[in-house]
C-alpha cells in the first residue's frame, strides 16, 4: 500500500497509472460499446473529416477511426500482457537457474543470458515469423524472449544477494521450508527490480506490436490493431495526412505511460537509484519500431 501511495505521490507515477487505467477502461468499454462497429464499411462516409458523429473521422473504407482505435486497445493489451507473462516465466526461470543451480550451470546460464541479450527483439521476431508466418503470437514470443533475458540479467544478482543475506539464513535456521523462505523473503525482495523491468518490457511490446504489424509480421490485417491501422492509413498519407496522427498518438501515449510508470516504480522502490533509471532501460537493444 505504501508503495502505491509513494507511486501516486510522484507525478510520473500518477501519469503512468492514469494512462494504464484509461487503457484498460477503454478496452473494457470497447467490448460492449464503440461509437460505430469498428469493422463496418460505409461507402458514403469515406474520408469523413473529424466531426460529429465521426469524432476522429473515417478511413478509406468509411470505417470510424475512433472505434478502430478503441477496439485496437484490446490487441495492445493482449500483446503487452502476453509478452509480460512469457518474459516473467522465462526471466525468473533463468534467474533462478542462474543463482540456485550448480556452479557449472550457473555460469553457463550467465554466459547464455549475456549472449541472448544482444539479440534485437525485431530480429528474433523476424526469425520466428519466417517460420510460422506473421501473427500476434510472434510479437508476444519475440518480446517475451527478448525481455525475459533482460529480466534474468537484472534479477539474478538481486536474487543472489538476497540468498546470501542474513534474514534468509535466519529463516532457514529457524526452520522455514524453502517454499516459505521463497514466498516470505525472496520474492518480496526481488519483486521491485523485476516489476520495473516488466513495465518497461510492456512498453517495448506495444512498440513492437505497432512496428511488426506495420511490417506485416504482427496482427492479421483483419484484426483491429494500432499498427495495422497505421500501415493502412500510411498508403494515403499524401492525400489524407492527418488521419495517420491518431494511431501514432495512441501508441506514443501508451508507451510513454508505461515508461513513466517504470521510472516511477523504480524511484518508489529505491529513491537513490532514481536518477539512474534511463541508463538501466537503455540496455534494451533493438527496441523495435
Amino acid at each position, binding site marked *: 500500500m505504501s508503495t502505491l501511495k509513494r507511486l501516486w505521490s510522484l507525478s510520473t507515477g500518477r501519469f503512468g497509472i492514469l494512462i494504464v487505467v484509461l487503457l484498460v477502461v477503454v478496452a473494457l468499454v470497447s467490448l460492449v460499446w464503440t461509437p460505430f462497429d469498428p469493422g463496418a464499411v460505409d461507402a458514403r462516409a469515406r474520408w469523413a473529416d473529424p466531426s460529429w458523429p465521426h469524432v476522429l473521422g473515417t478511413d478509406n473504407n468509411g470505417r470510424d477511426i475512433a472505434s478502430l482505435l478503441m477496439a485496437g486497445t484490446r490487441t495492445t493489451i493482449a500483446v503487452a500482457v502476453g509478452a509480460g507473462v512469457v518474459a516473467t516465466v522465462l526471466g525468473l526461470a533463468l534467474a533462478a537457474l542462474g543463482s540456485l543451480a550448480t556452479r557449472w550451470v550457473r555460469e553457463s546460464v550467465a554466459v547464455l543470458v549475456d*549472449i541472448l541479450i544482444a539479440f534485437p527483439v525485431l530480429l528474433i521476431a523476424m526469425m520466428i515469423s519466417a517460420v510460422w508466418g506473421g501473427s500476434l503470437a510472434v510479437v508476444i514470443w519475440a518480446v517475451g524472449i527478448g525481455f525475459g533475458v533482460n529480466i534474468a540479467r537484472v534479477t539474478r544478482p538481486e536474487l543472489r544477494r538476497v540468498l546470501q543475506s542474513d534474514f534468509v539464513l535466519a529463516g532457514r535456521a529457524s526452520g522455514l521450508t524453502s517454499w516459505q523462505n521463497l514466498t516470505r523473503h525472496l520474492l518480496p525482495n526481488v519483486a521491485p527490480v523485476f516489476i520495473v523491468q516488466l513495465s518497461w518490457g510492456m512498453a517495448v511490446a506495444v512498440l513492437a506490436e505497432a512496428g511488426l504489424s506495420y511490417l506485416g509480421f504482427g496482427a492479421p490485417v483483419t484484426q483491429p490493431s494500432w499498427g495495422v491501422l497505421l500501415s493502412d492509413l500510411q498508403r494515403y498519407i499524401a492525400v489524407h495526412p492527418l488521419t495517420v496522427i491518431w494511431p501514432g498518438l495512441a501508441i506514443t501515449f501508451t508507451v510513454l505511460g508505461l515508461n513513466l510508470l517504470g521510472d516511477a516504480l523504480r524511484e518508489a522502490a529505491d529513491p537513490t537509484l532514481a536518477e539512474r533509471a534511463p541508463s538501466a532501460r537503455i540496455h534494451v537493444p533493438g527496441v523495435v519500431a
Partner: protein
Amino acid sequence: MIRYALTRLGLLVLGLAVASALIFLALRVLPGDVAQLVGGTQATPEQVEALRESLGLNVPLWQQYLGWIGGLFRGDLGTSLLTGTSVATELVDKAQVTVPLAAMSLTVALVVGIPLGILSALGRHRAGGTALSVAAQALAAVPVVWAGMMLVVVFAVWLGWLPPQGFPRAGWNDPGAAVRALILPALTIGVVEGAMLLRFVRSATLQAIGQDYVRTAAAKGLTRTRALLRHGLPNVGLSIITVLGVQIAGIIVGAVVIEQLFTLPGVGRMLVADVAARDLPKVQGELLALTGFVLVVGFVVDLVHRLIDPRQREAA
C-alpha cells in the same frame, strides 16, 4: 588487458556460434517441407525429391549446419532459393544504402543527444532543462514508423523540400539525389535514437555533477559549468561509449522498419521481403549478418571502453 581481450573474444566467438545455431535451428523447425515449399504445389514427388537433393536437405541436420558454417569461412553465405543469386553479393549491394543510412542516423543521434543532454542536465532547475527532458521522454516513446510518417507529411507533402520515398535509380552515381533520399529516413531514426541518448547523457551528467572531484574543482575557483566540462565530462564520455553499442544496434533495427516506409533498397527491406517470401537460405544469411554485426559492435565497444577507462583496467 590482453587477458580481458581474449576472454571477450572467446565470448564473441561463442556468441556467434550460439547465434548461428539458433538461427539455423529456428528456420529448420518449419512445419512443412522446404523442398515442397520451393517446388510449389504443382511439383511432382520426383521433382521435390530432386530439389531436396540439390538444396542439400537430404543429409542430416548437423551436416547441413557444418556445410553452412564452412561456407561462411569462404565468404559464401548461401544462395537465394528464389533468384539463385549469392546472398553475400546481395548483402554487399544493399549495404550501400543501409550503411550510409546508419552512419547518417548515428550522426543525427549524436548531434541531438549529447549537447542537448548536457544542457538539459545543467538547466535541470530551469524551465528549459525540464522542457528538454520531457520532450526527450515523449520522443523516446514515439514509434519510429510514425515519426517517419510525420516527417514525410511536413517535409515532403507540405513543404515539398525532400522526396517522400524512394532512392535514385542511379544510386551513388547520383550522389546529390542519393543523399537527399536518405535525409528524412536518417532524421527519423536519428531523432528517436537521439532522444534516448539524451536521456542517458542527462543522467550521466547529473551523476558527474554530484561527484566530489567536480565539487572540489568548483571549490577551487572554477565555475560550476567549467568544472563540469573539464573534470566531469570525460567521465560522461566514457559511459556514453557503452551506450553507443546499444544505439548502433537500435539504429540497424530502426533501419529495417524505416527502409520499408521510405522504400529504400537496403538490407532491412530485403530482409522483410525475404521473410515474407520465406526465402530461408537468404533469411538465414541476412539474420546472421545482422546479429553478427550487432555482436561485433558490442565487442569493439567493450574493448574500446576498457582501453580508455583506467578504472576498468584496475578493477580487473
